[in-house]
């Protein structure tokens, strides 16, 4: 992904990641999420925004609200960023040069980028109002920016987007993609910056149980573009001692996966909290669909760059002649899938399959073996429910002793314990067992301040 995101996310992750995340990394790191191509350069265009995007919606029978249990909900979602960043990476894939773009919308001042107020009409007039806001969720406030054929298309609401995402019931970004404000400009114009992109307009929609209107007065005012070459060497202030570290990464492919993970969610018992979020008496289950999951897994070894390469290979079990002592080894796993929800409140059940959800886990092989993991990626559907940012609890992963000595090995991920998300209490459940096959190895050397 792109540097703008990296900076913001690493800031957010500083507390999670510890000192190792302060390292100065080379261009390959940013290849995450853009298909593994080599990032040649990156253009960042800061932007200021004016206006807002307002989505007014209601459960609509013609749009199928009854089947999903969404007829009781109506509300307004306001998206009001004040700034952000458009990042365009030039990527080489084989002999082809492509561009990958990312749009990030934020509000640098305090205050919500997205706020929602959703009414639930209950039997006998017993309903409630869910009020929620999002300032800067860890998984981002992203629209869609697609560079193709010398043109850049920016779409505010897009599949996988998070601008409409709150804990209240309502449409997903992807539902409204076809009605979303969008603008297409020559890529060269965006790369230069210093131009305005008008995303204003009003469109009606009726999809996935909801009908309503999108009203946008958003204008993106692009600032001066700055280009960074990712081949530039690491630069630290004079006098700062640095150390070079080698990171050896071995890709793992999925042979088969069994089981599934879920989160049992219920509204908190605190009467003030649950009333303000309309979660009093709300219970349900979110499930990461186990069928045909998307998967990402690596074995990662890290140590001083002065050590022979065979030491790293020995540490990950691919050689026997080196000395593995002092090389840290870990296995990281991400399980992607679509989230299914079944949430009940006051006799009404909302059933939906919605946006993406992710379970991640990391196992440190160095003695003693340790693991950390959790739920992330939103886990939002059109039903009311919690959203998962970057909780490092809820998933325990394990690896059998000596697993790395084999070409294939199994990693087990187990839902464990409970955690909270604002007005929700969540209980992690389930098991996933994944058989992994070892694959391609890459190596990179980074420079970071020495300890």
């Amino acid at each position, binding site marked *: 992904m792109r540097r703008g995101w990296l900076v913001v996310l690493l800031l957010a992750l500083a507390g999670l990641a510890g*000192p190792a995340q302060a390292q100065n990394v080379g261009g390959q790191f940013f290849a995450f999420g853009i298909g593994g191509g080599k990032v040649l350069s990156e253009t960042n265009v800061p932007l200021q925004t004016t206006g807002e995007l307002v989505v007014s919606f209601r459960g609509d029978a013609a749009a199928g609200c009854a089947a999903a249990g969404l007829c009781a909900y109506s509300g307004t979602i306001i998206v009001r960023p004040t700034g952000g960043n458009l990042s365009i990476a030039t990527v080489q894939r084989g002999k082809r040069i492509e561009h990958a773009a990312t749009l990030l919308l934020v509000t640098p*001042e305090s205050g919500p980028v997205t706020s929602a107020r959703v009414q639930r009409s209950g039997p006998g007039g017993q309903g409630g109002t869910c009020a929620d806001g999002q300032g800067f969720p860890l998984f981002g406030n992203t629209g869609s920016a697609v560079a193709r054929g010398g043109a850049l298309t920016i779409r505010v609401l897009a599949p996988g987007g998070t601008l409409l995402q709150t804990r209240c019931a309502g449409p997903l970004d992807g539902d409204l993609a076809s009605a979303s404000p969008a603008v297409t400009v020559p890529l060269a114009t965006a790369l230069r910056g210093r131009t305005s992109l008008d995303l204003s307009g009003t469109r009606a929609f009726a999809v996935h149980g909801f009908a309503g209107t999108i009203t946008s007065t958003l204008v993106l005012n692009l600032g001066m573009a700055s280009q960074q070459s990712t081949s530039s060497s690491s630069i630290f202030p004079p006098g*700062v001692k640095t150390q070079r570290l080698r990171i050896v990464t071995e890709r793992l492919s999925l042979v088969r996966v069994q089981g599934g993970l879920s989160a049992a969610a219920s509204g908190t018992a605190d009467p003030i909290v649950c009333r303000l*979020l309309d979660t009093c008496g709300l219970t349900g289950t979110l499930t990461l669909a186990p069928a045909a999951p998307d998967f990402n897994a690596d074995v990662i070894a890290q140590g001083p760059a002065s050590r022979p390469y065979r030491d790293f290979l020995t540490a990950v079990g691919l050689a026997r002649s080196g000395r593995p002592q002092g090389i840290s080894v870990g296995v990281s796993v991400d399980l992607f899938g679509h989230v299914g929800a079944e949430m009940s409140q006051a006799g009404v059940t909302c059933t939906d399959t919605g946006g993406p959800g992710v379970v991640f886990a*990391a*196992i440190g092989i160095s003695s003693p073996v340790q693991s950390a993991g959790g739920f992330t990626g939103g886990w939002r559907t059109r039903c009311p429910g919690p959203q998962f940012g970057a909780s490092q*609890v809820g998933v325990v992963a394990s690896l059998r002793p000596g697993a790395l000595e084999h070409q294939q090995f199994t990693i087990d991920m187990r839902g464990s314990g409970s955690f909270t998300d604002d007005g929700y209490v969540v209980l992690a459940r389930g098991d996933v067992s994944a058989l992994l096959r070892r694959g391609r190895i890459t190596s990179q050397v980074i420079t970071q301040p020495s300890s």
Partner: protein
Amino acid sequence: MFRWLARTLAVAALAPLALPAHAVADQTFTASGSVTYTWQGDPASGCAAVGVCGVQGALILQSQGSGSSTGGGPPRGTIDVPIESTGSTVRVADGSGAGECVDVASLFPGGDLLITRRTGGGLVGHIGPSVSSGRCAGPLEQDLAALMLPVRRSGGQQPTFDLRANRSFVVGPFAVTLASTLVVRTARGAGGSKTVSSVPGPVQRLPTHKVLLEQVTLHYRTASLPGTLNAAFSGEPDPFCATLDACGATGTLALSLTRFHRTLVVNASRPSAGRVDAREALADFRRGRLQATGIGFALGGSTAQLSETFAGSGGLRCQDTVDSHKAPLFLSAEPARPGGGVSLVLNNPVGSDLLRTYCPGPLDSDVFGASPGVARASIGVTQLLARHSVVALADPGSFAGVGYVGSRSGALAFSLTLELVHAGTVEVVRP
């Protein structure tokens, strides 16, 4: 996006697990659980006088994962674990039935859970800074920062700190409940290391040289005079106002300072090829040949008093006056145009909540913008050399913040009495 995020999280999760020994902090801890603040107007605490008896609100902070101790953790030091306050949502209903105020804590800085040893010997936990009810009616930042959590320590070299508690407090006109499920544990495998990684590497000394400065230094006795900085505000047009439940709302803010005396120092100088005497330096100062700067002072010992009135469209009528003995205001003298004297600026650090009372209303950043300057006044050379003078610091104009728009007016006045003048040539060492 999610793919990349998951990758980053997994790698981040690996970091504390698989770091080489030399990169491990003194002790690393992981936190789990959350802190829930709820509040409601309390008749026994005077909510009727403020007009907030119908107010109910909530703010929940999540633990973020791992953090480290400084100096080895209690009893030797402090444990500092990040808490998710950036993006935490404040929700407040004012009882009028009109709607709910929803606000989000600021992006920077985040909150921290600090475990320290109390003077009496016991461990105590508190959350801070920058946690408040935002633009909604509720407790102030200083109120929530003062709330303490009990800490029960168990375990030996790899301790666990249990901060689970359910406590009630009275904060201004509100009854506040603090429910904590926080537990801080030593990260497995990370405890016991005695190597501290936070010491920066040696920094090369830069070469220095001596220079002569022609300089005039002026010492003033400064005293505050009666005056107020005012802001009149109203909710933004629909739909912007809806989030904060500010549609149709109007209000006023008035900031004043109680009387205080301080010394203000103004320096004016320029590099000089040779030595000049006092008379020549003063003459050059009068001619505007010296660049003036100043040494300011904090108003920490004085009280900033803020009065607010708020009228919501749903019937909420709130009026409140808050005395802040911890007002972070400081007065500084900044260079004006070359030869043009100085600008006196009253600064309010970004992120503080100087303008907040227990009523809903705009934040400092809404009224004053991103600049820390609250009010300013220019002082020319002639006035700087006067025995007595009065300056009025103001910054009138309109503002448009999040949910609120309005205008600033009024001024804070200060008297300046010139008490001491140094003039001549000084020798300084510069890089």
